[in-house]
C-alpha cells in the first residue's frame, strides 16, 4: 500500500469518521463524493463506537496479508446510531459470536507490508464486557 493511499484514509479509519449530506441528512461511511439525493456538499459525521453484530462469518482462507490472523471473524455491525459497517471482531472465540452481541470499536494493527513497508492500522471491534 502506498503511503498517500494509506494516509488519506487515516482520519476515517482511526476515528470512525463519516460524512453527512448537507441537503438531505443521509450519512455515509465511508464518505462518497455524491449523495443519492444528488447533492455533493457534506459535513463530517462521527459514528458511534459501539453497536451489535447483525451477521458474521469466520474467514478460514484469507487473502494475502491476513494469513497470521486466520481464522478470524468478520461481521456486519449495526452501530448505536443506526449506521452499519464491516469489521473484524477480535478478542473472542469465533464459536461464541452471536447475532445481537454487543461490540465496541478498538484500534488495532490490520496488516504490514513486509519487513520494511508501512504497518497499517484501523478499527476492529471486540465484545463489550458489561
Amino acid at each position, binding site marked *: 500500500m502506498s503511503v498517500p493511499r494509506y494516509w488519506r484514509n487515516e482520519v*476515517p479509519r482511526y476515528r470512525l469518521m463519516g460524512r453527512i449530506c448537507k441537503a438531505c441528512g443521509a450519512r455515509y461511511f*465511508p464518505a462518497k463524493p455524491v449523495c443519492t439525493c444528488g447533492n455533493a456538499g457534506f459535513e463530517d459525521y462521527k459514528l458511534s463506537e459501539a453497536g451489535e453484530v447483525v*451477521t458474521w*462469518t469466520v474467514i478460514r*482462507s484469507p487473502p494475502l496479508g491476513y494469513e497470521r490472523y486466520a481464522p478470524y471473524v468478520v461481521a*456486519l455491525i449495526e452501530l448505536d446510531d443506526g449506521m452499519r459497517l*464491516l469489521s473484524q471482531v477480535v478478542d473472542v472465540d469465533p464459536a461464541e459470536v452471536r447475532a445481537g452481541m454487543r461490540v465496541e470499536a478498538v484500534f488495532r494493527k490490520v496488516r504490514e507490508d513486509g519487513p520494511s513497508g508501512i504497518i497499517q492500522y484501523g478499527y476492529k471491534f471486540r465484545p463489550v464486557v458489561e
Partner: protein
Amino acid sequence: MRRVAVAGVGFIPIKEYWDRSLQDLFAEAALKAVRDAGGTEVDSVYVSNMSGSLMQDQINLGALVADSLGKPGLPAVRVEAGTASGGVAFHEAVKAVASGYSDCVLVGGVEKMSDVLPEVATTAMVMSEEQEYTAYTGVTQAGLSAMLHRLYLDLYAEPAEVGMMAVKGHDHSVGCKHAQYPFRMSIDRAMDSPMEADPIHTMECSGVGDGAAALVLVPAGESGVEVAGSAVATDCCSLTTRNDPLVFDAVKRAAEKAYRMAKVKPGDVDLAEVHDDFTIDGVLSLEALGLAKQGEAAKLVAGNATDKDGKIPVNTFGGLKARGHPLGATGLYQVAEVTLQLRGAAGDHQVPGAEVGLAQSMGGVASVSAVNILRRFGK
C-alpha cells in the same frame, strides 16, 4: 434498434492448462465460434477478462487478442465487471450490433487462474469489492456471501436445502464434456466438507480453473437464436448500505429490464443459467430473477423444480459449481450453453422444447449483474 442473433458459439473444457497462455485459450474458443458461424469475417472484438492484470500482469487485452487471432487492425476492447465481465461484455456486443455500428462481433471471455496460488486467487476475487473499507477488513468474497447465507438460514431454510444448489449443479454436469467437475456429489459430502467461510462449506464454492468461451453476434435473420433481452444493472457496492441485503437489487433490476425487452415473464423462461459461485448466491439469484419467491428458492431447488425435467431447469450443464467458474469467461459459457439449449443441440443436457433461455451473471456480491435472455426463432 436492430434485432441481434447468435451466429456462432465456441468454448473449451474448463480445467488447468499449464502449457497454454491467455491468448492461446482465447484463440481456440474464438476460432471455434467463428467456424460455428460459418467462417464469417468479424468486424470488432470484445474480450471479457477479470484478473489478467493480477494473474498475468496483462492489460490492454483487446489489442493482444486481436493480434493473436491474426487480425491486428480490428477494433477490440476488454470489458471488466468483476465476475459479471462475461455477461456485461455480451451486453456490450449486443448493443454494438443492435445499434448498427457493427455487423459481426466476436465476444469472447478468457481467464487463466492456474497461473497463481489459491490465496492469490482469493485476493483477486475480493478486488471486486471496495478496497479501503470492505476488503481492508480481511473479508473474502466467500465471507461476504457467508454473511448473507447466515441471514438466509435464520429466516428461510436449512443448511442442507441451500447446499442442494451445489448438489443439483453436479447432477446436471454428469457427461458434460466442458465441465471441470462432471460428477455427482451427495449432500452429505457437501455438508461434511470443511468450512470455507462459516456457514459456507468448501463444497458449496465454485473452484479455480482456466477457460475461454466465445460467441459471434450478427443482425438477426429468420432462423436460429436471437437475443430477446439484454440488460445490466448495479447496486450499492457495500452490503452495509443495502435496505435488505438478501435482495439482489442489481439482478432484479437487470432482470426486469431484460424481461420487458423480451416481452416475457419469469414463468415463460424454459431454462436459466444462474451465478452460483457460492450456493447462497445461486439461491438469492433465483429469487431476484423472479423464478422463486423471496425465501423459497432453496426449498424449490431442494425439491425437483430446477431439475432438468422440472418446472424451471437451472444450470443445465452444472453451473459455476460443477461446470466451472473461470471468472471473466463464466458469463459467456452461460450464454453459449443457453444457445445450445435453444438450438436443440444440448445432447444429454437438452431441455426438451426449450424456446426461451436466460443467463444471469454478477460481480462482487451482486453489485453488478447482467441478464441476457435468448429466444429460438418462431416462438
